[in-house]
Structures are given as C-alpha cells and as structure tokens.
C-alpha cells in the first residue's frame, strides 16, 4: 500500500461541517429504491417453504404436485444446491442454512422453494410440497443446550479449545480464554468481592426493511443480483461459490438499505433466489415476510454470563473474572469469544480471566448485531462494577475513573492500548449536568461504559472528475449510516473544493474492485482512507495537466485549496488554475482525470463510550420509561457530526428496546411465538426521550484525519446503563434482560418474599 495513513493533525474546511444528506430527498419522497423496489421484465415470485419443527430429520420431500400446478415455473430443494464448498466448513453451514440438506435445525429453516407467476400461485404451490419429517428432540435454551444430557444438534461437533480432545460430541463447539495475571491471587487481595450470574434473551436487529432481492441467471452463465445488503461484494463471493458461478460473471448491485446492523452481512435467501432463477430460466424476486425475517434470518445470541470482581477498600480492582455462554444457533460461531474479549476492555486490570463457550441451539443461525456480543458482556460486567462501587461506598463514576484503562494499559484481551478515550468519556460524564439533575420518586439513574474494536478491511474507490469540474466518487462500501455524505466531505476536503461539487455513489460489483462489507464500523473509516488516497492520486494528475497547460515542469506545480499553483517568482504572472479550469481542458491534455485507490485499511482505532440513563419504573405494573438519556463517545474525528450523533442516538435507541422489551420467545415445542412487531416490541419514537449526545475527538493515530469507527460502540453500554438505572429505581439488582414488566414485578416479588 503506497499510502501513508498516519494522522497528520491538519486543519479542516469541509470535514466536521453538517451539509444536508445527499439521499435525504429521495428517502422522504419515496423515490429511493430499496431491495423490494427493483423489478425485472418477466420476473417470477419466489417463496420459501420452512420447517415447522425445531429439529427434525428430513426423510423425503415430494415436490411433484407443486411442479404440476399451473403457473409454477420452478421448485427447488437442497438437491438443486449441490455441495460445492470443497471442505470449507463455514461455507457449508451457509449452504445448509440457506436450504436444509438432511435435517431441519430450527423453526423456520428453509426446506424447499418455488418460483411462480404470482404470489398466490407460489403460496398454493408451497402447500402442495410434501415433506416427511422425523421430529427429533430439540433444545433452545443456551444453558440447557450446554448440559451433557441435552439433545445433540450435530454429532460431529466436539468441543474445541480444551486441553484434551473430548471423547463425546457436544453442543458446546468451542472454549476460548483471555486474560493475564493470577485471578486467584487477585481475589485473595480483595476486601470486597461481588459475584453474580446474568442472562440476556435473544434479540433481532429489527431493521425495518426485510431481506429482498431479484436474481436473474442467464443460460450463458452470467447473472445479476439486485439486493439489499451490507456487502454486495461478499454476497457475490458467497453466492458464486455456492452456485458454481464465476464471480466476475455475477454482477451484484446493492439497493438502498432500510437498516442492517449486522443482519445483512450474511446471505440467506439470495442463493435460493439464484437457484430458482437458474432452474426457471427467468428472473425471480424473493422478499422475506416479517415472520420469515424473525424466524429465518440471524438474530443475536442469547447469553448466560457469570461475573466476579474483587476490589480493595480504596477502590482498586484486584481481580476480574467472567464465564460467558453464548448461543450460536445450530452452526458453530465465535460469539462468546468476542464477548470474552470485550467484557473487561474498559478497565486496567492486573488479574483478569474470561472464558467463553459457544453453544449450539435449535434457533436461527446467530448473526452479527452491532458490536456483536459486546452489549451482553458489558451488561453483566457493568452491573457488577456498579454493585461493587456501592459496596465500597464509592461514586459509580469515580470508581470507574479510578480503574479505567489508559494509554499503556494492557487490555483484558491482550495487547497494550495506544491513545484511547475511556478516561475522557468518564470525565465528561462526571461533569455533565445530567449527573446532577434531581430525580423524583420511582426514578433511578444509571451509567455504564462500553468498548468496541472497530475494523478496517479491503477497500477500493474510484474518483472521477467530470469536464465541468464536478466529482463523482464511486465506493464499494454500502452506505448504511451516511457514508456517502461523509465520503463526499472527505473528497471535497482533500481536493479543496466545495462539498456540493462531489456526488458519491455505491458502485456495483462489476464496476469496482473488491470491497469488504460495511461492518465493524468500517464504512467511513476504510472508504475515507481510500477516498483520500484516490483524491491524492487525482491531484497528481491535475498537477500534471496544469503543468501541460502552463508548459512548465510538473515539479513546479503545487496543489492548494482546489487550485494548481505555479510556485516560484518566475511564474508570478501565472494565475492559479482551478480544478474546474483543468477539468475543462482535460480533453486536450490527456483525456479523463481520475484517481483510483485500492488498499487494506488497517489500524482502526478502538473506541469507548459512557452512557447516562434516567428511568421511571411503575411499581404496580413493572413498566419502565426512559426519561432522559445521554451518550458520550469518542469518534476520533467526526467527519459529519450530525450523522455521528445519529449513530449515537440509534445505538442508544436499539439498546433501550433490547434492555426493556425485545425478546425471542420460544414455546415448549421449539417454535418461535412472537415473529412479528406486534408481539416483538421494538421502541417507537413515543417510547423514547430525546437522546443527548456529546462527541469527543481523540484522534486515531492510524488515519490521516484521525477517524475511528462510530457505528457500533453506542449499543454497548445501554443494556448496562438501563439495568443500573432500573436497579437503582426499584432497589433490586436486575440480572435478566429484557427487563420487561413481568420480569421486574417478579424481581420485586422475590425481593419482598426474601
């Protein structure tokens, strides 16, 4: 990578301003095209038949009656998606999840699909498919699944990460461990030790737009996929591999996205739509219903976590330990591993140990959900931290400040930190007026900290300068949180032109080199780095063209504030040439002017947040209202502060829903009982207070502008902050998320009964 990503400490003209969003008008007028808004001539309607059983052997599938129904153009089962994964276990799991091969592993697992001329015919056809199941015992609870006697979901799975290879298969797929020091010694030094167990229920990202795609496979082996995704290049790779297509012949175009939050980093229906189109010889549109989104896309883990923390009388934490069990759905994952890494990342600890267990259950395959796994670990740890502060008679913020990690601290997951923002977020919270505002009866205040890694990744960007001097920026990271605005600001900053001269678009997979998906809070971090690099490459060409126009050596040309300048007294009579001047002459100086960049954006800085929350709990009903909420978070550098504030608010809003209401509820039959927004209640505007934000800017040393990811960290503290607030309001430690009214009443009853 011939690009220096180091922070330069420059002053900004465009970056840090708040222009209106480029996609705003399209979105409020309904012109924006989402996944389900795309149509192709002659397209068919795809529908999926799903298992009603949590765990069942598929003995046979008879599709003959469905195939004979007038209007049905294709019926597929797993036989139409042969295994081309060549020993790649992770890809095989994606294939099996797209269409069950031998067993249905959860309620909602796809077992067959049809393409028909209309939705009615497709639904009728599904009813004509006969599946002979042998129902097997199932397990949906993470703790029950980890028991030795639990029904086995995959008898080929033996727990990884144990000192001795186990003799028997298990639903526990992996054990991981992090930490340093000696926790036994540390606990022996403690004057106070708090130990508690916590549970969090499974939640869905709750994106408003269901998964949707249109697939068209042509007889010559070329194919198109129009899809709502967080990563169209990754979808192309996965779909091409699963269907045996050449990647370069599968063009994937990403639509606008009505929310993803990690749930659209994974293919679910797309391989099925492509397989249907290939068989039918016509385009197929496949849109999931909300019921299908809940039952058959990827929610986050349900968890069970034990935490133990010890401290001296002076408030120094001497040891911290956590055991984390995370559900993965029916396929192995690394969700507890992430929880184990993030659990104590906010603190400076001499003795720390975390152990994670990945657990298979008969639920949908777990997918990433915004800072995946970190919120649940933070809930458990920050609850105990709060309780320990009380036990010590210390202020909760002061206790955290005393133990906060800082530059040079060895993190709980291993490496030593560079410059980080946990201390500054805590200091900002300490002096925030919110902390001093009076509370009324039945109200409580809580605060909590959170950490997330942030990632970079492979990134490719094109910057094209039109002959009128306007700039089109083609990026390959899907805009999930305002990156088109922030990247336009970055291009304007680097070129020295006005924001209004730049138009950013998300290019399809045939128009740009490979990009990793928009996950890990990487969209603006990575693509801004590539945009800066592309702009600098374009400036080299602009300077060369100016030199031609002036007929002087290019070495005598500099670029300042959007203009080529001929440096030196001998060029005193030469007026600066603007980007527009140079672009207008480009046809006669060498043709189009463009800058390209392909790079791996690594070195994304970790980020921290501290949240404050006030709640009011009705002691008669157990109902909780959040009455005030404040987010303080380090952004590195806020490129477009309004979007950054929106990310902070969005994370808090999702966290409020997760903390108070959202929950997958399974019946004894292993079937999901609430697959819809009426029974799975996400917060609406009237449920939420104004969420105040405070942006801190501790520059990331590994980005030219100091940018860190901002999209995920904001969902890490809310579960804990709200749990601490509710616990303070009702005087009972809440240990089970969501803190729904029945759960709060049960906790109050249990307390009364002693």
């Amino acid at each position, binding site marked *: 990578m011939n690009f220096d990503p180091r922070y330069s400490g420059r002053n900004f003209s465009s970056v840090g301003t708040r222009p209106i969003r480029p996609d705003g008008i399209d979105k409020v007028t309904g012109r924006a095209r989402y996944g389900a808004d795309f149509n192709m001539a002659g397209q068919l309607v795809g529908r999926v038949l799903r298992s009603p059983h949590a765990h069942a052997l598929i003995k046979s599938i008879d599709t003959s009656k469905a195939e004979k129904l007038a209007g049905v153009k294709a019926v597929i089962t797993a036989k139409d998606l042969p295994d081309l994964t060549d020993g790649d276990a992770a890809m095989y799991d994606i294939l099996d999840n797209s269409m069950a091969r031998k067993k249905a592993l959860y309620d909602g697992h796809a077992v067959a699909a049809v393409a028909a001329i209309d939705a009615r015919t497709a639904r009728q056809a599904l009813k004509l498919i006969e599946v002979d199941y042998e129902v097997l015992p199932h397990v949906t609870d993470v703790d029950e699944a980890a028991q030795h006697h639990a029904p086995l979901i995959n008898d080929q799975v033996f727990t990884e990460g144990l000192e001795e290879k186990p003799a028997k298969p298990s639903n526990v797929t992996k054990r991981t461990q992090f930490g340093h020091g000696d926790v036994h010694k540390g606990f022996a030094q403690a004057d106070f030790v708090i130990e508690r167990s916590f549970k969090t229920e499974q939640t869905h990202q709750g994106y408003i737009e269901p998964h949707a795609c249109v697939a068209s496979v042509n007889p010559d082996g070329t194919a198109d996929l129009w899809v709502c995704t967080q990563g169209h290049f990754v979808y192309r790779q996965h779909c091409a591999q699963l269907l045996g297509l050449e990647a370069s012949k599968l063009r994937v175009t990403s639509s606008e996205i009505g929310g993803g939050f990690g749930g659209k980093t994974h293919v679910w229906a797309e391989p099925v739509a492509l397989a249907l189109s290939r068989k039918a010889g016509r385009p197929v549109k496949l849109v999931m219903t909300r019921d299908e989104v809940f039952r058959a896309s990827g929610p986050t883990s349900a968890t069970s976590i034990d935490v133990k923390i010890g401290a001296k009388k002076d408030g120094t934490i001497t040891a911290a330990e956590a055991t984390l069990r995370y559900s993965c759905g029916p396929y192995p994952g690394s969700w507890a591993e992430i929880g184990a890494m993030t659990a104590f990342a906010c603190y400076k600890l001499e003795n720390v140990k975390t152990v994670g267990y990945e657990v298979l259950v008969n639920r949908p395959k777990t997918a990433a959900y915004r*800072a995946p796994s970190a919120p649940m670990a933070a809930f458990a740890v920050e609850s105990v931290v709060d309780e320990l502060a009380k036990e010590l008679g210390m202020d909760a913020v002061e206790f955290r400040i005393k133990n906060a990690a800082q530059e040079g601290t060895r993190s709980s997951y*291993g490496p030593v930190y560079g410059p980080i923002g946990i201390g500054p977020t805590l200091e900002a919270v300490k002096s925030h007026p919110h902390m001093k505002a009076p509370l009324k009866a039945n109200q409580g205040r809580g605060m909590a900290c959170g950490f997330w890694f942030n990632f970079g990744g492979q990134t490719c960007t094109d910057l094209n300068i039109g002959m009128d001097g306007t700039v089109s920026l083609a990026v390959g990271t899907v805009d999930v949180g305002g990156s088109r605005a922030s990247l336009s600001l970055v291009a304007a900053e680097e070129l020295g032109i006005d924001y209004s001269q730049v138009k950013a678009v998300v290019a399809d997979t045939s128009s740009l080199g490979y990009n990793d998906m928009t996950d890990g809070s990487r969209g603006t971090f990575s693509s801004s780095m590539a945009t800066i690099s592309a702009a600098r490459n374009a400036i080299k060409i602009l300077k060369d063209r100016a030199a031609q126009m002036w007929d002087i050596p290019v070495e005598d040309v500099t670029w300042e504030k959007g203009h080529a300048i001929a440096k030196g007294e001998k060029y005193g009579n030469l007026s600066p040439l603007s980007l527009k001047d140079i672009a207008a002459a480009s046809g006669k100086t060498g043709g189009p002017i463009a800058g390209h960049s392909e790079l791996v954006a690594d070195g994304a800085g970790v980020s921290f947040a501290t949240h404050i929350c006030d709640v009011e709990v009705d002691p008669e009903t157990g109902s909780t209202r959040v009455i005030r909420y404040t987010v303080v978070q380090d952004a590195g550098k806020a490129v477009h502060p309004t979007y950054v504030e929106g990310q902070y608010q969005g994370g808090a809003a999702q966290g409020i829903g997760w903390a108070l209401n959202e929950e997958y509820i399974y019946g004894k039959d292993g079937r999901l009982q609430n697959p819809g927004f009426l029974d799975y209640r996400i917060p609406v505007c009237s449920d939420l207070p104004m969420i105040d934000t405070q942006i801190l800017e501790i520059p990331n040393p*590994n980005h030219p502008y100091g940018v860190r990811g901002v999209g995920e960290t904001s969902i890490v503290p809310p579960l804990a902050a709200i749990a601490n607030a509710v616990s303070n309001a009702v005087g009972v430690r809440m240990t089970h998320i969501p803190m729904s009214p029945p759960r709060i009443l049960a906790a109050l009853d249990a307390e009364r009964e002693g």
Partner: protein
Amino acid sequence: MVEVTLWGSLSAVAGGKAKHDIEAKDIRELFRKLAEQYPGIEPWIDRGIAVAIDGTIYRDTWSKELPPGAEIFLLPRLAGG
C-alpha cells in the same frame, strides 16, 4: 527476533506455549514460520488471525513490518455488525 504472544486457544495448538520468539520481518513471515513450527496452526491462519502490533490491530496487512522490540499479540479475526 520478535516475541509473539498467542491468545489462549491458539497457544493450545502451538505446543501449549503463549509466548514464542520468532525471526520474522513482517506478518506474512511470522505466519509462515509459525505454521512451519506448528502445522496445527495453519487452519487458524486460514480462518483468520489478527495481529496487534504495539496495540494497533492489523487484520489483512500481511506486509506490515514487525519492528524489533514491538509488542506482537495474535488475536482471533472478529466479525463486526
């Protein structure tokens, strides 16, 4: 020569040792030498290992040099949302 620390699970396939002294100029050479010494580590490299160099996490820049005396820490390559 750099000292490399492996996270718990990875050290289990590297002779049970968390710390290793390796002669490697960059991440690519580090992975190659670890795999030569401990073949069991190869599937882990295929699945993805991130390398923290003085606290900065690198996931894909295998050409990244390992400065002498730097703290090198291997971590799982994680997913984000």
